[in-house]
């Protein structure tokens, strides 16, 4: 039998009907995650056609994108300030009740960003197909799942049939040798990968992150890597399950128990790409050569090492447009540029290890005058763990603004925004024009770099503070 990639194994195992020249594959979906922003139109389609959700037991709903992060609006008697957001929340509550879908509601201790809570629950498992109306669904690939973002029409297809029509993507090996140096994180690695592959280099492909540097990462770090696969244009990103994966999953609420666990583990151990499996494309990096990274432009591929200067690309119109928007010039150094806002959170870097990293920098220090440091945990469970272990106290003592969980300032849908012209060092995933607010200028970086920049009020290398 020919050597197969992990992607091919997962794909083949979920083909209800294989693809032909005339028709895409009918692909079975094991887990469908939904949230309030991309589901209303899909539920409306079901209602209009009188269809049920075929497998409510394989559907999980949460509220994250447009929800407030202020404690008063979630646990107090203050209504959600944005009326349209309040309507989306109510609509998902009603749809979940009408269609029998499990919802982690506004005050549920398990609520949070969809890509944070599903792994926390153990609902995300190796070998699964997982979809969500959100491009950062690629996060779940960290477990060796095939996980990708879909549009609302496809959300409706999964509701009605638990399947999607899909053409088989190509495969792309991202080989990362070596080991990350102290102070250099998974975020820096994925930014370097996107810088190398380019923001459209992964289009039509599923990435598989491989090599010693990847094997050395924790599950939360692997999630950071897979999360940003979409920023290279890729359909999905995957990492083979191993002992780290099993250790993370063991005992989580929704993983199989007893003999069923042993059977699952045996299956999961077969998922890794076979030796000699061939990929349609590949790229090689050496983790040991990397430094903390930061973006300087308006897409995640416009990235440099923190001590480097912005590239001089002359009259390249793409670079010029981006630098004009950012208020930067080619040749300028990134270090020392002033910062107005720092955001630590999101499905990329809103997990407990990310907050622990921020706390290492912030402990016993104060946020620079005039800088707003917003720290938003990825889930209520992350929030409670951060409070129970003293991280929240460190943040508050440093002068940070500590909130309830949600997507928050990553995309500014809920009113947590960066002002026009302001510079925000952000641990999120997109530095697109206006992403964090109209006219906002985003600099993507790791939690270490973000926290260090908050302390000094300017872009700073975190390593001297560690």
């Amino acid at each position, binding site marked *: 039998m020919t050597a197969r990639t992990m992607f091919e194994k997962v794909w083949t195992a979920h083909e*209800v*009907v294989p693809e032909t020249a*005339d*028709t*895409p594959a*009918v692909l*079975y979906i*094991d887990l469908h995650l939904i949230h309030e*922003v*991309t589901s*209303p*139109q899909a539920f*409306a389609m079901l209602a209009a056609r009188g269809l049920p959700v075929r497998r409510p037991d*394989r559907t999980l709903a949460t509220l994250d*994108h*447009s929800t407030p992060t202020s404690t008063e609006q979630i646990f107090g008697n203050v209504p959600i300030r*944005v009326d*349209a957001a309040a*309507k*989306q929340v109510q609509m998902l509550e009603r749809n979940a009740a009408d269609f029998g879908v499990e919802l982690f509601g506004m005050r549920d201790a398990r609520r949070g960003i969809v890509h944070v809570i599903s792994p926390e629950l153990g609902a995300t498992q190796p070998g699964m197909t997982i979809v969500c*109306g*959100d*491009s950062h*669904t690629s996060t779940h690939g960290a477990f060796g799942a095939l996980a*990708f*973002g*879909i*549009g*609302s*029409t*496809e959300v*409706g*297809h999964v509701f*009605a*049939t*638990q*399947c999607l*029509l899909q*053409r088989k993507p190509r495969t792309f090996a991202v080989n990362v040798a070596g080991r990350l140096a102290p102070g250099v994180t998974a975020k820096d690695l994925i930014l370097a990968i996107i810088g190398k592959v380019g*923001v*459209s280099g992964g*289009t*039509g492909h599923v990435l598989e992150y491989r090599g010693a540097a990847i094997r050395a990462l924790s599950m939360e770090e692997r999630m950071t890597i897979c999360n940003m696969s*979409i920023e290279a*244009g890729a*359909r999905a990103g995957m990492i083979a399950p191993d002992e780290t994966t099993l250790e993370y999953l063991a005992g989580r609420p929704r993983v199989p128990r007893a003999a069923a666990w042993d059977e699952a583990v045996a299956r999961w151990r077969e998922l890794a790409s076979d030796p000699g499996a061939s990929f349609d494309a590949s790229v090689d990096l050496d983790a040991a050569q990397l430094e903390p990274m930061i973006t300087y432009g308006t*897409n995640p591929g416009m990235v440099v090492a923190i001590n480097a200067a912005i590239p001089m690309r002359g009259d390249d*119109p*793409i670079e010029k447009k981006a630098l004009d928007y950012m208020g930067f010039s080619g040749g300028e150094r990134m270090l020392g540029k002033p910062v107005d806002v720092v955001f630590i959170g999101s499905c990329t870097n809103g997990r407990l290890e990310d907050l622990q990293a921020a706390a290492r920098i912030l402990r016993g220090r104060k946020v620079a005058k005039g800088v707003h440091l917003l720290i938003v945990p990825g889930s209520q469970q992350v929030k409670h763990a951060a409070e129970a272990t003293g991280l929240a106290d460190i943040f508050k003592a440093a002068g940070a603004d500590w909130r309830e969980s949600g997507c928050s300032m990553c*995309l*500014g*849908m809920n009113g947590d925004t960066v002002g*026009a012209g302001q510079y925000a060092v952000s641990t999120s995933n*997109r530095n*697109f*024009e*206006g*992403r964090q607010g*109209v*006219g906002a200028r985003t600099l993507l970086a790791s939690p270490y770099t973000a926290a260090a920049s908050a302390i000094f009020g300017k872009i700073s290398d975190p390593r001297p503070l560690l």
Partner: protein
Amino acid sequence: MQPITQLHSTTVVMPSTNIDTDQIIPARFLTVTTKLGLGQSLFADWRYTSDGRPNPDFVLNRADAANSQILVAGHNFGCGSSREHAPWALLDYGFRAVVSTAIADIFASNALKNGLLPIVVDPATHGWLLEHPGAAVTVDLEARNLRLPNGASVSFPIEAFARHCLLNGLDELGYLQSKLDAIAGYESAHSV
């Protein structure tokens, strides 16, 4: 859905590369629960000044852009989020096709499901289109080609089943539902 066979239209040109979904429709306009009326928020941050008036420098605000159904955009159009609001906004505004040298996967998939044609052409054809804004072109879905006023005819790739659905005004869910027996068989065979 209405069947689509051909489009005849002048083009609007937005040469920027990597036009992402946050530009096509910023997230603050996603707090809706229907697909309707999103055209007024299309390219909002480029199209309107900070006081909400039309930005006279933006291409869609020029008189000659009105009624164009074909957007010619720079490389890697539609990158970023999975929001189907992006094709909904383009369609609501009046576009029926986007032409580029690369179109992001999720955007292209969403576009096809709504009757917005994602058309990928070679760099030379793209270059000609960028240099000739307002050119009257024909998109022939049946023949899978794009015809330019200079007489050139360029074929474009399009997923066969999506094309079949668009030509016949079918929706893909109907096909999926025709496979429900196979789906139930899969579920019982795999104990899911």
